[in-house]
């Protein structure tokens, strides 16, 4: 029971790290970035490449791979999303175009990784990060990478939540989400803020990707798709654009999935996410943490 609770918290932390970037991009820039999962796997792949010959130690690898993931997402923003926003002033049309582009980007990134790894699952060698398990009495225990994932998720979640709420940049992001035109009139370089936001979103996917690459036995391109689906459930349950909502629902869904696996028919695990999406859309379509709705300009 206690072990399963630990499992759920670790899994919730994984989901938090993965979902926050997606939530950020969707909530502020209307970019439903389906390449988020591919970027996540890409970071795992970079981790693998940097460590497979034991050439780089963990912390520099973490930094390089996260920055690389951020850079890929930034490139998508600059090459595609920004142009689409300028080209289609109508939000709906822009959203759909960005969605389609992101599917394409996911495919391209996936193909690159598949090609480089000969389509096999990959994982950094044990030497990249030596995993230890600490016993908490009886059969209950936790590994150092699990602790690291939980700590990283807490730090990222708190920093992002507070950053969005309290900083100058955070205000600019929220204003941009509501009305980019007026925000720019107030002197905010919205192009730069959007670029920085997408970079951050990508780097967060990267951070999750590095941790997961070490935590899981092996990653493959399809791994990202699996997390993407769960992340959608998280965003819908939490309320689109709500950072706190995403955090809370990431842990809720992790608890629910863990409970199903541990005490129920584990093959229904994926069904949990779908079920929660369905229930939320019927009962509370704005999500758990939706803000007051204001008509947009």
């Amino acid at each position, binding site marked *: 029971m206690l072990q399963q609770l630990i499992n759920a918290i670790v899994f919730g932390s994984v989901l938090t790290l993965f979902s926050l970037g997606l939530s950020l991009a969707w909530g502020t820039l209307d970019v439903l970035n389906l390449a988020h999962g591919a970027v996540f796997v890409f970071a795992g792949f970079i981790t693998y490449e940097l460590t497979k010959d034991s050439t780089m130690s963990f912390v520099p690898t973490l930094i390089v791979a996260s920055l690389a993931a951020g850079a890929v997402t930034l490139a998508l923003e600059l090459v595609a999303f920004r142009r689409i926003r300028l080209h289609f002033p109508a939000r709906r049309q822009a959203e759909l175009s960005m*969605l389609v582009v992101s599917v394409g980007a996911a495919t391209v990134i996936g193909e690159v990784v598949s090609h480089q790894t000969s389509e096999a*699952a990959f994982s950094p060698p044990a030497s990249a990060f030596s995993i230890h398990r600490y016993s908490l009495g009886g059969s209950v*225990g936790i590994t150092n990478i699990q602790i690291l994932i939980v700590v990283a998720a807490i730090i990222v979640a708190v920093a992002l939540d507070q950053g969005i709420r309290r900083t100058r940049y955070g205000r600019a992001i929220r204003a941009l989400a509501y009305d980019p035109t007026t925000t720019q009139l107030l002197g905010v370089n919205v192009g730069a803020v959007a670029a920085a936001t997408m970079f951050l979103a990508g780097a967060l996917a990267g951070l999750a990707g590095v941790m*997961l690459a070490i935590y899981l036995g*092996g*990653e493959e391109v399809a791994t990202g798709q699996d997390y993407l689906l769960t992340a959608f459930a998280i965003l819908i349950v939490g309320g689109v654009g709500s950072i706190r909502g995403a955090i809370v629902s990431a842990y809720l869904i992790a608890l629910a999935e863990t409970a199903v696996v541990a005490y129920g028919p584990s093959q229904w695990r994926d069904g949990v996410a779908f079920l929660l*999406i369905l229930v939320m859309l019927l009962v509370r379509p704005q999500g758990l943490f939706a803000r007051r709705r204001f008509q947009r300009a």
Partner: protein
Amino acid sequence: MARWALAPLALIAGLAIAACGSSSGSSESGGSKEASSGTIPVTFVADQTGLVSYVGEKVIAGMKLAVEEINSSGELGKRKIVLSIANSNSDTATATTQMAAAVKSNAVAVFGPALSAEALATAPLAQRAKVVDIGTLSEDTGFLPIGNYIYRLTCSQLRYDPLIVEHVAKLGLKSTKIVYASDNPTLSEETTEHMVPELEKAGVKVQGTVGVPSTTTEFSSLATKLESGNPESIGLMVVGAANPDLITALRHSGYKGVIWGEQSATAGALVPAGELANGFFYAVDYTESLPYESSKKFTELFKQKHPKEIPYGYDANGYDAMKAFAKAVSLEGSGPVTRESVLKGMQKEAASGGFEGASGKTIFVGPEHRDIAVPGVLVEWKDGAEHIVKLGTPGLEQQQ
């Protein structure tokens, strides 16, 4: 449209295929279409790109190796096999189009694609055109009944279940739990219909079976569940990255017992788990160190051609499919090769006890002797390589 409605787009789900690559070889003898004298045209509708391209590429490599060997050895006299590759893109519609073109061409035999859906859709075209199709699917029971031109060379995990059960019992393991890919009908059925009763019969208590979706990657909660009750062994009837992921999760959560699996763990699938996968055992068609003369020959040829790669079952399947075809041709003498002569050759080959290929001595089994069975081998994974535990017997399941 609500934003969430777009979510399913993300589910470009990875259809993992259960296990084997397949190979098929065909030669054409033109009834109306006469192949130019001295050449034996065959077509492989291969999954060169798309979902299972990693299988397709290996099968192609093995098949090409066999063509080179056969053509240079002179075992077909002056006649040369000319292999055409038609890309199915791992897609049923494309595969069907390619197969339709292949049977209209002067190919004297065709080799079908690997995915079950593709194989089942393309085989009737070959049957109607009366051209031998050496198919490439694992265990779909609907494939061979399509007709008398349909053969398959396949790695049926079912054949190897006895090898595994026997080894589990031999290690003195009293109990086991099995986790299977719940969205893979072959593995689900095999687990519940075959492995569980056979293990119980061998005196191994099956404490439970647990289904998981193939997309799962985070297995810590499942690992905790599997460990409860302290089974002495845990069996993995899963595909792709789930093998190393599960092994890693089980070991990191402190599981000390034996872990065994099935042949989707081959071809380097366990590499990501590193030394945590040491001791994992499973059964395959082919492994590098097989002691048979014909296997050694294949391994040597492969290494000459691809010095940096390790040959695995998919390469061996491609090679063997072509060898099966070549033997059929040679059994029909040195005359012109026709579609009809290929069929007669295959039937003679079946009756005469099969052929020797990369996987060893291979026989034709099943009701009409169109199911090509390799002996199989039980291997243990240790330090990045497969080590032979026990050699199998061709058509093992037939003897039960």
